[in-house]
């Protein structure tokens, strides 16, 4: 079996003169759960569509399960589960219709599917539908967004896909349904050799479920590492100066900094604690503190535009 289930080399997509995706290189190994994050408009959906062969790249290439994205064979597509943004399904069909339609593209029984082929697990599908409180005869157009997402999840997971790609699966869903999505993903992870790539705006979910985090910023990959590496690397430090602050700051790994009165707040990437202590000493810092952050805080700091002004504050009432 291929070692990397998802690969991209220099993958680029231009819309007009602007690159939505700019020379992306990726290698995702089998069994990895990757959180794909980025600000709105960073290019996540474009990247995913390129990898699934829905878009033609302006440059570069990508491969899924060893097969070129632009020429995905039916056999390979069968092994890839895909949940598109918005979970759009045929509106006039019933859940039963969709199950019949979807299942026709896989082997009838999970058990009789040959090695490397996907089989439809009807029991899992209907168990999930029942768990969600839905029924066979319901028409898709009568379902709420959340219910439609549930159906989409059931459809995507039932064939037990080897590679699961989900584009913002929990967008607009309430906390309970989001939890169900995570549970479904965890169940899939338990199966050997399943790889998941999912994009999300909810960093808390990524923290729970993912092994790796890939940060896309304006079409460029700015981070591709384990969650732990990311969490250790991105540091926010507050320095308090007794007297004067240095005009320029020169420390390894500085991403951006903010000044206020006698305080200097820096966001550092990959800077060792010793280096921070060293710099603090040499700059005449009175005291400093490495601020504890969760993954969401770190993501926000990491993707903040450099030189960003602090958010506006209301004028204090006289």
């Amino acid at each position, binding site marked *: 079996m291929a070692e990397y289930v998802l690969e991209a080399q220099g993958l680029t997509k231009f819309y007009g003169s602007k690159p939505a995706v700019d020379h992306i290189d990726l290698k995702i190994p089998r069994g990895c759960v990757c959180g794909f994050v980025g600000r709105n408009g960073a290019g996540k959906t474009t990247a995913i569509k390129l990898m699934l062969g829905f878009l033609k790249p302006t440059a570069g290439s990508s491969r899924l399960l060893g097969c070129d994205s632009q020429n995905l064979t039916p056999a390979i597509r069968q092994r890839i589960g895909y949940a598109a943004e918005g979970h759009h399904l045929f509106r006039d069909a019933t859940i039963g219709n969709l199950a*019949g*339609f979807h299942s026709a593209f896989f082997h009838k029984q999970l058990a009789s599917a040959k090695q490397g082929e996907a089989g439809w697990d009807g029991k899992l599908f209907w168990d999930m539908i029942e768990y969600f409180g839905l029924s066979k005869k319901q028409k898709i157009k009568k379902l709420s967004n959340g219910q439609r997402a549930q159906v989409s999840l059931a459809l995507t997971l039932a064939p037990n896909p080897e590679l699961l790609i989900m584009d913002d699966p929990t967008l607009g869903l309430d906390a309970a349904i989001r939890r169900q999505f995570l549970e479904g993903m965890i169940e899939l992870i338990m199966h050997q050799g399943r790889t998941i790539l999912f994009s999300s705006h909810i960093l808390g979910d990524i923290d729970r479920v993912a092994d790796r985090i890939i940060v896309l910023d304006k079409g460029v990959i700015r981070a591709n590492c384990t969650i732990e590496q990311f969490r250790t690397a991105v540091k926010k430090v507050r320095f308090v100066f007794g007297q004067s602050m240095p005009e320029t700051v020169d420390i390894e790994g500085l991403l951006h900094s903010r000044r206020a009165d006698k305080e200097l707040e820096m966001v550092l990437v990959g800077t060792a604690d010793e280096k921070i202590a060293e710099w603090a000493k040499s700059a005449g810092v009175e005291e400093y503190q490495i601020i504890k952050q969760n993954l969401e805080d770190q993501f926000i700091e990491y993707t903040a535009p450099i030189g960003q002004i602090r958010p506006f504050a209301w004028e204090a009432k006289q």
Partner: protein
Amino acid sequence: MKFLALLRGQLGGIIGTGIGQIILILGCGYFAVTAATQFERFSENFGSASSPLSGVGPLLIFASILCGSILGLQFWLMSYRRTWHFLLHRSVSRVTILLSMITAAVLTLVVFTGGCWTLLFLYASLPGLFVLPPTLQVYFEGWLFISLGLVFFMGVALSGISTAKFYTTKLFGIIFAGIILIVTFMSLDIFRASIVIAAGILIPAVQLFSVFLNRDF
């Protein structure tokens, strides 16, 4: 198996449109034929001999174009409803998917529109109904009208799938179908009309495949 599933996926549209065709053609057609029988008796006295089903002609053209257009509208709806990705991420080739949609259109036109036309023709051919029953040529002409439905299916589908930004370019498929329609009626005989219609089906079909297989979704 998979192809059948693709067809079954379109069943809703097929049956819905099909029932509409039945109501339209058999319903209105029946009245048209009945009126024609009256007219025949009337015109007998004046010596003019028009085809007994001449009233049904325009009805059939209208119904066929309507049928083809409704089925071609799918290509617009799927973009609007963003369901392309669900359909395209199947373990079948894109060609197969497009073929299934074309097959569905052809089936609807043949089974429903064509079936109704045949029934109507047989009814009009019943002995004793008309002094001059309709000829086989009329029957064949009717099928030509039905294939205009396929011309419009191709045109509407092509427009729907087109990624052109300018309206005129995007609607080219439909405009082309309209032109084919006009040229068909300007044709002097059935043979020339058939050629025009065949072109009206094949040319957009080639374009349809080309765009469908190559465009970004």
